């Protein structure tokens, strides 16, 4: 099984929320959103910084929502590790909402849970998730975990080497 995941580079995320809109469009959502963007401020004038974080379901390897669901409506897909809810089995008890540290479960007007499904339908057809496709800064990525890790490690190494060349330590190295 190849575990897929999202990765986010906060140094690239501009907080534009295009990912949220793309997700809502892809999933025909109105009042509810599967993806959230948070703005985090740090520091004090004049050394201030704002970072943005786009977060949806993390499709956890050991998902707490899968563990607590009383009807076993939530399960992981073997092919890519996507955590999916069978809505016809969902009774709207909100146990998953309480279990998830990321706030991924949402509740539609029928009272049942819905959430990011890794756009597994798109993945199955060789497409990227809607949020990843639309991201203008390429902050959001999706792929097998090993590939994402390797890419991040490479990007971090490059930044480190560049800064060593300049004689400075980069932020977040």
């Amino acid at each position: 099984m190849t575990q897929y995941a999202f990765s986010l580079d906060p140094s690239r995320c501009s907080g534009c929320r295009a990912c949220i809109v793309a997700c809502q469009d892809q999933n025909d959502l109105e009042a509810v959103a599967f993806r959230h963007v948070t703005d985090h401020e740090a520091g004090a004038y004049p050394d201030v910084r704002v970072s943005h974080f786009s977060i949806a379901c993390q499709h956890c390897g050991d998902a707490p929502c899968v563990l607590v669901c009383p009807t076993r409506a939530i399960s992981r897909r073997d092919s890519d590790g996507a955590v999916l809810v069978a809505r016809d089995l969902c009774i709207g008890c909100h146990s998953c909402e309480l279990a998830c540290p990321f706030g991924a479960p949402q509740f539609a007007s029928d009272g049942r849970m819905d959430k990011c499904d890794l756009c597994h339908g798109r993945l199955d057809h060789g497409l990227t998730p809607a949020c990843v496709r639309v991201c203008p800064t390429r902050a959001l990525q999706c792929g097998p975990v090993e590939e994402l890790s390797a890419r991040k490690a490479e990007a971090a190494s490059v930044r480190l080497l560049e800064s060593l060349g300049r004689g400075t330590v980069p932020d977040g190295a």
Partner: protein
Amino acid sequence: MRNGRFVILGNGGAAVSAAEAARLSGYRGEILLVSDVAEPAFNPMLSPYYFKGKIPWAGCYPLAAGFYRDHDVACRLGEPVVALDPDRRRITLGDGRTVAYDACLIATGAAPAVPPIPGLRESAHAFTLRNAASARRLDEQMLTARRAIVFGVSLVGMKMAEILARRGIAVVLLGRGRQVLSRGTHPAVAAVLRRYIEARGVDVRLGCTIAGVEDTGNGVLCRLSDGTTEPADILLVCTGIRPNLAFLDCGQVTIDQAVLTDERMRTSADGLYAAGDACQALNPITGRHDWLGTWGNACAQGRVAGRQVAGVDAALPGALPQHVSPFFDWTYAHVGDIQPGDGDVRHVAFGDAEDGGYALFSFRDGIVTGANMINCAHLAGPLKSAILRGARGDERLLRGGDGHPLAAAESILDGCRLGRLDHRQHDGGAGGRRARPAVTAAGAFSPP
């Protein structure tokens, strides 16, 4: 332990999770599951959804047919355990036969506690709600009942009041204390919930208990402590639960409110574990032993026990009292400790139940300890995570009052949601389980 006999007492969330976890962790020995009920695992939290018509009766049994066979679990169903000898490592069944074990898990759950009120236990019209048999009995009775008394303003009592009221049955809801939901709900929040349920037509009487019960042929007559007498077709008793430990000699195993365990679900006796509603496990974060009663907690604890038996060193990282329930058109969630006791304790409330949600947070010495949330349960998951990390309340949150919109709390909790990733090997735990995906937004987050 890779082989040997693993005996599981009980057949609820903890029991089946332990069996499954043991097999998934490579346990190849015998698993024998013993239960006094001759049915597959029943989830008591699902019966209210059956009564509300959301699931068929079969939906209360969450396991797929063939679960026991697929996980190679031998079952002795319909057989009560009458004794357990931890020193000799054996159990005694109702027919006198003994079964030796190498490891044993006490997952016998809990049963409703019925107070010793004159006439109550003998009444043919008094019901508790916990297992499949009692749910079926109640189901029949509700078809013809026109008036009900619900004794106990616990979560179960509130849910039963809702179910009865939705069916057009007149409900009198009695509570001994001064508020509904005495465990874990702040009085201000309890007052909001009480007004809500009264607006739905439920007659709520607090500071009131039952002095005596008399059967009258088709129903009951209850003498209340306030001197009045109330007739009803059915009387529901929802005054709490007690762990099913009659088979245990308390001299041999340490018991408090339930069987005490460490964070690895080990009791004071070798080779003996406990999980679920029969267990009071150590919370390594608070250092206290908490008796928690949710299906999710039972599954998390059962899983730890199953892994331990299979030789995997699993542990619960921590747990919090918590629950979330739909309630009429509202959703009510509670996380953590709303009355943390000593220290500088502050309560801060935000919002409006009918407009975006109402949340009340508790702080001790600036550290968030718990919250009650009406119609903003989406805060519960991230908040639980924040509490388990010992997150400090932001100054904005601490200064807040009724005037602050819920958005302030939300943005602060967004920050909590993004907290530092802890790279320890966490394992299970319905409370504060920090998921450990390999690459996440939080993993990419570099604090300045």
